[in-house]
């Protein structure tokens, strides 16, 4: 009888150890998922128009940003976030494509585009995005999209 209860305790202990282990595995898996996400963010600058005083001027990086969104927004793990001040909100809503819009009190002097993969900053650029930068960003996002697609292929 004693031997049976010892075996029972041992099984109980094993079960506890297993459940604790599986919980940590799950949390690790969650963390792993979060690390795999790529966030592309545009921090709209104060000098966001091509020339001051022109009401019909476009946002300087409008075409560049919308191009990235159209190409990569279909990928599950890439998120597009725009940060802008309240006064630019309407213009952003009318002109830019995005997943998340965050209103901020303080804007940078010029537009800033940041690409983060998990907690790591992969790319950062202020000002107008030229084609050289766009090629860099596109490659980064392509790699990110491919990397995240690998488990699906197995």
């Amino acid at each position, binding site marked *: 009888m004693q031997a049976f209860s010892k075996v029972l305790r041992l099984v109980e202990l094993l079960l506890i150890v297993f459940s604790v282990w599986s919980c940590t595995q799950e949390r690790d898996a969650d963390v792993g998922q979060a690390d795999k996400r790529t966030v592309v963010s545009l921090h709209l600058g104060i000098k966001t128009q091509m020339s001051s005083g022109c009401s019909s001027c476009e946002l*300087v990086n409008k*075409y*560049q940003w*919308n*191009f990235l969104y*159209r*190409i990569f927004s279909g990928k599950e793990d890439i998120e597009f976030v725009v940060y802008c001040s309240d006064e630019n909100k309407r213009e952003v809503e009318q002109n830019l494509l995005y997943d998340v819009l965050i209103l901020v009190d303080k804007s940078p002097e010029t537009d800033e585009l940041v690409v983060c993969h998990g907690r790591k900053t992969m790319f950062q650029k202020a*000002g*107008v*995005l*030229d*084609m*050289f*930068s*766009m*090629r860099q960003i*596109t490659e980064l996002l392509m790699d990110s999209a491919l990397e995240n697609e690998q488990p699906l292929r197995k």
Partner: protein
Amino acid sequence: MIKKLLCLITILAIFHFPSYADLKKVVSIGSDDINYRFFGVAGAVLDDQGNVYICDSKGSFLRKYDSDGKFIKEIGRYGQGPGEFSNTISGLYLCDGLFVLDTGNNRIVELDQELNIRRYIKLSKLALSIMGFSDNLYMISRTPGRFSFEVGVYDRNGNYIKSFFDRRPVFIERIEQSKIGQALSLIYSSIAATVERETGEVAITFQWPGENIEIFRFSKDGEFIKKIVSDHIIKYDFPEFRLKGLPTNLRFPDQSNLIMIRSIHSLDEKRLLLEYWVNEYNLDKVVKENEYILIVDRNSGQLVHRELLPLKSGIADARKSYICAISNEGDVPEVVIYRLDY
């Protein structure tokens, strides 16, 4: 009697209604593929082989495509150094090489047709557009101390030689008195120009025509040759249109039209192409907007052909029967080559 009437109607129809079916799309460049993607096309030019060179001001790059629209090469990034452009590239011109006006860096970049940079030409003053022929470069800029524009002649090193075209539209004289009138007179004095590729002859027109469209022809050295007048737009299309300057209270009549000549191009030694834009207003609201091309005889100013352009396009270059149009509207900016058969 009926036959005569029909004949008259046919003649009237030919003269009054433009034929829009003669502009055939040959190649269209612009898509979401990275090599075909533009962010703000500032200029495009065709060479003799049908290759097209395109500069993009927002992307700070220059590209070459073949006659089928296939990507060949790209150069440029944003900056002030060698191989870099500012994001205010404003023009492209082809003449024994490729010339890019980089206004942000206040220089002209000379390249060969393989997009290898030959040299930089530093500018002494702000140029609005460039043209060239043989050893001369021509730049449109503001006339110092005046509310008008002139064409400056420079050598290939950017050294100033002379200026010509010291004219303003006649109607400007009526609105020049006040401060706002002076500002308006500067706007309404703006000019467009083109250089004939074979002879170097320069043709200049006011972008805001008065009662007629006036075209001034100069030799490659800036000597005045002839003024030609084309009154067809007003005579046939808009008999009610008269632009004699803005009214003093800055209010247009209830119904009015506004015509602007956006660019002029030399098709060949006989023909000039004018690109113009017409807005029909009801009070302050635009009720109709159209863009046209008008081909006129270089010697007589007679109308040769007229064509409607797709809206929101602009003509960047024209050569013989080919027209290179750019459009920065919509989600994907594009460059379209048309063939003009008439």
